[in-house]
């Protein structure tokens, strides 16, 4: 079987995979990183979104071997070693942006990329458009949109948002 070297959440891995092994299968089954989920077969739902070299991608639509030499970040790699949550995770919690939690890892990874790609500001409309690759069946998206809007200033160091409530 082919060999693959990559970095996941800052840790180097050398593993054997089949040609057909998807990146998400490598993460979940070989590396035990089950925070990344699989919600569909057609690249629509976004439950599997991770960052590859800093960009959000659907790990169910990428071969593991395509990640040779890449740096991958998953939901497990966001919090600081002391457990401090990433501002996006914190705002998801603060704004009740998750219910069953299944879409949440992919949603958070997409949301972080969305905020990073908009350093000059992010409107509600842009947030809603920017989530087109992620499906949530529980929340109606209302609170996800609020959470991302609240995370934007925290991530760009602009200002502290008014406390929720």
């Amino acid at each position: 079987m082919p060999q693959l070297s990559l970095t996941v959440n800052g840790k180097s891995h050398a593993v054997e995979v089949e040609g057909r092994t998807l990146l998400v299968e490598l993460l979940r089954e070989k590396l035990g990183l089950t925070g990344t989920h699989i919600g569909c077969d057609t690249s629509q739902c976004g439950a599997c979104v991770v960052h590859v070299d800093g960009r959000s991608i659907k790990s169910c639509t990428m071969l593991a071997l395509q990640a040779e030499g890449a740096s991958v970040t998953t939901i497990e790699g966001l919090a600081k070693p002391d457990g401090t949550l990433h501002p996006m995770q914190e705002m998801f919690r603060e704004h009740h942006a998750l219910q069953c939690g299944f879409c949440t890892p992919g949603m958070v990874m997409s949301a972080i990329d969305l905020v990073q790609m908009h350093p000059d500001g992010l409107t509600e409309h842009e947030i809603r458009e920017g989530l087109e690759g992620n499906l949530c069946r529980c929340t109606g998206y209302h609170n996800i949109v609020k959470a991302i809007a609240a995370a934007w200033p925290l991530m760009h160091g602009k200002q502290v948002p008014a406390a929720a409530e």
Partner: protein
Amino acid sequence: MGFEGIGASVRRKEDGRFLAGRGNYVDDINRPGQLYAFIRRADRPHARIRGIDTAAAAMAPGVHAVFTGKDIEADGLGGLPCGWQIHNKDGTPMAEPPHPVIAVGKVRHVGDPVAVVIAETRQAAKDAAERLVIDYEDLPGIANLRQAVAQGAAQVHDGVAGNICYDWHIGDKDAVDAAFGRAATVVKLDLTNNRLVPNAMEPRSAVGDHDAAGDYTLYTTSQNPHVIRLLMGAFVLHVPESKLRVVAPDVGGGFGSKIYHYAEEAIVTWAAGKLKRPVKWTAERNESFMSDAHGRDHESTAEMALDEQGNFLALRVRTLCNMGAYLSTFAPCVPTYLYATLLAGVYRTPAIYAEVKAVFTNTVPVDAYRGAGRPEASYLLERLADVIARDTGRDRVELRRQNFIPKDAFPYQTPVALQYDSGDYFATLDGALKAADWAGFEERRKQSAAKGKLRGIGMSTYIEACGIAPSHVVGSLGARAGLYEVATIRVHPTGSVSVLTGSHSHGQGHETTFAQIVAEKLGVPIAQVEVVHGDTQKIPFGMGTYGSRSLAVGGSAMVKAIDKVVAKGKRIAAHLMEASAEDIEFKDGKFSVAGTDRSKALAEISLAAYVPHNYPIEELEPGLDETAFYDPKNFTFPGGCHICEVEIEGDSGMARVVRFTAVDDIGRVINPMIVEGQVQGGVAQGVGQALMENAVYDANGQLLTGSFMDYTMPRAEDLPDITVGTESTMCTHNPLGSKGCGEVGAIGSPPAVINAVIDALRDYGVRHLDMPATPEKIWSIMQGGMQPGRPAMAAE
């Protein structure tokens, strides 16, 4: 620590693990030595299986076993049971054809399991499944309701003539006929409630395990593990409860679709026993589309008789509903006791008669999906209300108000069996009109018109019956189970608390809400309260979570158990403080002797209970661990008013919801933040049903919407902000006063959306439009050509 009790928007305890990627969903579970199952499913709607050649598959690399329906039969397993029996008008029981775990003799819908391959890896199982050679003889398929009841239709099941599962009715036909005889006006409406695919984001999954002692464990994506243990153990595998543990860990959404006992659960558990290895199965999304129970799928005719003043005199309803190819666990009760009993709505219509015919088709089984029966009833009534207003030239708000059940009429006995305990439909209506700025709509309409958009506003004033349900009532209606709930409150020696609940959380936030009840009642910080659910080995029993029952029934069981803890604590405290138990008061986590400054904290009492050195041991057992079963006295009746505004693009016909306001009466609110989220999520599903979602079969029974490429799921950009408010009256018969909030969003919203679409199209003379209101349907109306609607049913 701020206030954490009832009424606080406490941030959720469960979020930490979900946000860190440490949730524990079934597909995350891997047992040592685990094998993988892949299910080969029927690719056609209806066929005789002439033979299955398993030889090549069995010899494929990594394969441990290939099983067909005959192997299941040979082991003496039962079929998948149905939990509810409806009786026909003539008193005979419904048709209840067998539902084999794996098809035997015939396949009856696309997705019906034909064989299972069990191998070392998922891919090996899937590779091998392609080597199965299945010799089919195609039979004519029944793809929809109309085909099912047509003269000379093919039969889905031998022995079920005309494909009729049951022909049922409720209400006083004579009284209704008499009222129609003297009516000033009769308004009639034909309408379809579209078929939906629940699509919880987590696909179903099951892991079966079997140990050396002969004990089985099933990890499954279930809303009610005890029910699965009961049904699978007693009816399918014939394994006693004591030898079967069912665990439903973190579950990624259910919306009804994970209530039922599915074939895959039985397959992996049985196969684990046969192969002495754990066996995992996880649905691919395409399998979810063809094997998760679908929702809705009704065609109805509704007629309202009115007097000259616009008072509702009588309602007559005929409904044809789809059961799919087999009876799913709760399916028969959905279009009967969860639908027709709600046809009074919020109105004082004195006479109601409904006939419901359930039919079999060669489609995926249909069962409860968020709201279950109640969205169908409210859609029918609230569309009808708007059509009555339109046809008789009345204001749609005033028509509703005029026919509301008055505030002082509670408890109100409807003509269709239910007795509403409380409600104030005027309050929710007025609250919603104000919050939505109904009065200011015309100005917004003009602004939209200036942009080339047609704007419309619509409302629904709906009710639901939930908190299911009093066991003796449902028993008399055909339920084969009780519908109480169970809770254990275990106060540990040092004062932390475990809540063992038979309710199951798959997004509802029970770990937080239930902890808040403990905080309120026992004065224990929620950080010291652990809510345990989803494991038959840990929890005494439980009926699970569906029908918005967790708080009203599960929460009430908790309160009952907490009351027992307090009662026992008082006796211990009385002993320790040498007072009479009657003089002990419990407040804010302290037992005190009335009129004195003597008190003991809960933790002191619990320590004494477990370290009974100074303890009334002759009269009281040690320990502080109480279990209660709570059987509700009645259903609960949330209700409210939803107001929707849509904008339609004048050129393409595309409708978008631009404003949505929900004001609901859900009784006592424990956590407003969670309630708001539940309502918003329900509304999103309702908007999805009204504008985009539709499960479509072609005339031959092939599912055309078999993936997210063709089945439209609402996305963030398809929805607006959803404004949620509450105007609550308390439930009068449970200790919390709570009614339930999980389904109101999906029940109240679809008619509000369609009413808004029709209102936007006011210049086009359209009276009705079936869901989903797709751009093309709306465009067709704007062309003045095709008038949507459907021809009369052949069966009528």
